[in-house]
């Protein structure tokens, strides 16, 4: 168990190192951050001064060594643009993104599970076919396109929901959330639905496949023969068995929700880390990109680890060894 956790952590360090090298040297190839920072009115002397102040006048490998030295002391660098610690910037905006991803995840289950169950239990009905066709559509719709359509429909035309931003936040146990007010829910509704769309389709499919398989199992047939009510069969026997794969997959998908929030946050002006990353990419704010990669990789590794642990708790047959065959 401990060896398993340790090995995972070693892997994480490896990914971080690899991504770090790619980002650090890659950004340098794309352009010189200095031209994205300075005011165009500045003369050559000032450009040189600024480059010196930010350490951008040195060769890239030297900058990399300086970075490694500082990183070893726990300093991941300051944002070129904001002048603040890059890690701090990211952690400050992380709650907004986690909140959005969390609501999207809940939406995916609440909408996807019943639809998928239905489609799995009555595979031949018209409605089931319709649900499956729609789920293919859900898979295919580009997120950014749907986002705009949602704004146009629900914010601009109907005026039901705000188009942008996050509601007022309160701090609960040190975690900033906007989900405690109606205003907050109104703000999160559209972006969360937008983000959830792909995952709804995914849950529909998982639930349907699970339900179809479970319906053929002996214990379900047995339960039916025993004359248990349909709702009890579904609620207890089927649901219990399909929840394990769904929980696992969704746990893993939480990471992808955080990643896809780059798109959603841009469209809905949601103040999370996705927008921060995109802004950093366009401005070549290398320390922020680097810090983002590190934070996100750590987050993913943690999530994966947790999912594995939960999975092994749910299903005692799974042992925490990484079988190679």
């Amino acid at each position, binding site marked *: 168990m401990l060896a398993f956790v340790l090995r995972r952590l070693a*892997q994480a360090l*490896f*990914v971080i190192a690899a*991504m770090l090298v*790619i*980002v650090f*040297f*890659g*950004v340098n*190839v*794309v352009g010189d951050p200095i031209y994205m920072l300075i005011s165009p009115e500045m003369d050559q002397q000032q450009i040189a001064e600024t480059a010196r102040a930010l350490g951008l006048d040195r060769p890239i490998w030297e900058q990399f060594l300086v970075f490694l030295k500082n990183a070893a002391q726990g300093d991941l660098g300051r944002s070129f643009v904001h002048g603040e610690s890059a890690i701090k910037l990211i952690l400050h905006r992380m709650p907004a993104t986690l909140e959005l991803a969390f609501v999207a995840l809940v939406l995916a289950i609440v909408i996807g599970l019943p639809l998928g169950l239905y489609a799995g239990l009555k595979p031949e009905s018209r409605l089931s*076919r319709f649900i499956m*066709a729609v789920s*293919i*559509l859900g*898979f*295919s*719709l*580009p*997120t*950014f*396109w749907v986002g*705009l359509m949602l704004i*146009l429909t629900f914010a*601009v035309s109907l005026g039901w929901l705000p188009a942008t931003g996050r509601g007022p936040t309160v701090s609960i146990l040190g975690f900033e959330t906007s989900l405690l007010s109606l205003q907050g829910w109104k703000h999160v509704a559209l972006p969360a639905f937008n983000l959830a769309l792909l995952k709804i389709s995914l849950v529909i499919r998982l639930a349907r*496949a699970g339900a*179809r*398989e479970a319906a053929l199992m002996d214990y379900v047939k047995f339960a039916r023969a025993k004359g248990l009510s349909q709702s009890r069969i579904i609620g207890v026997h089927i649901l219990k068995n399909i929840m394990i794969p769904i929980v696992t997959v969704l746990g*893993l998908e939480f*990471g*992808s929700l*955080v*990643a*896809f929030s*780059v*798109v959603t946050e*841009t469209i809905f002006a949601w103040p999370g880390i996705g927008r921060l*990353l*995109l802004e950093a*990419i*366009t401005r070549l704010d290398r320390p922020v*990109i680097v810090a983002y*990669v590190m934070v*996100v*990789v750590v987050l*993913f*590794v943690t999530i*994966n680890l947790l999912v594995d642990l939960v999975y092994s708790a749910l299903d005692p047959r799974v042992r925490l060894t990484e079988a*190679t*065959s």
Partner: protein
Amino acid sequence: MSDTALPAAATTPPAAPAKEETPFRRFVRSFVEDRLALFGLALFLLIVLLAIAAPLIAPQNPYDLASVDVMDSRQPPGAVSGEGFTMWLGSDGVGRDLLSGILYGLRISLMVGAFSGILAATIGAAIGLIAAYNGGRTETIIMRLVDLQLSLPSVLVALILVAALGKGVDKIIIALVMVQWAYYARTVRGSALVERRKEYVEAAQSLGLSHARTVFRHILPNCLAPVIVIVTVQTAHAISLEATLSFLGVGLPQTEPSLGVLIANGFQYMLSGSYWISVFPGFALLMTIVSINLVGDRLRDVLNPRLEK
């Protein structure tokens, strides 16, 4: 997925007439049973045909700046261009005929999807085979890499790669290959492991056939079924991903637009009433992805005998 590599209809009851049926025929028969999938396939073939024939059927070459006139910009569907042809889907912000733009954009989107899919499949399959065939340390290292790759969301990896590589068709293909290869490597390795233990491979080896021959003649063909499923799913994914990256401004250059770029360009006109600049390319993109997914969905069902009734 490793256990899905059995030949398609191996477990189907012998409902077919006495006449001997090849596995391929059985596969085709089973595929066409689903009308929706058939529709998807027809739609996809039509789209590919349109894309290939674009230079012949498009009223305008949207990349030839001498034939595009800014005075034709933002004309509604059905307007007549300065050169006298009807712009059935209207024109975009620089005066490009939208129908022509979409046809040419399809070419780029499909090309990006297909190229990255084929490259990723080839590279991924090769790596997967190497892992399965060599075993031991090589396999462990490769599979660790695959796990890592799959644990990171593709959109994020692609975004960071493109940020580091820069804009351009070649760069986007590289980025897409790098986010896709792992799926193939994992699947092919799984199938290959199953195949490897089968008698015919052992027989081939005891006959003294070369490794390469064993792999290419015997193991690889038997891994193809799951690879085909992944190719369809991943191609759709790649096209969608390219559009997303282009929308975020880090994908393809704007001068030779893919569907994603066309939509992104039209995005700014959505509120002004010139809906067609964004809606029609969006529809084309949606149809392309839906058609591929319909086919992929059916393929998965057909090639996965466990769900056969």
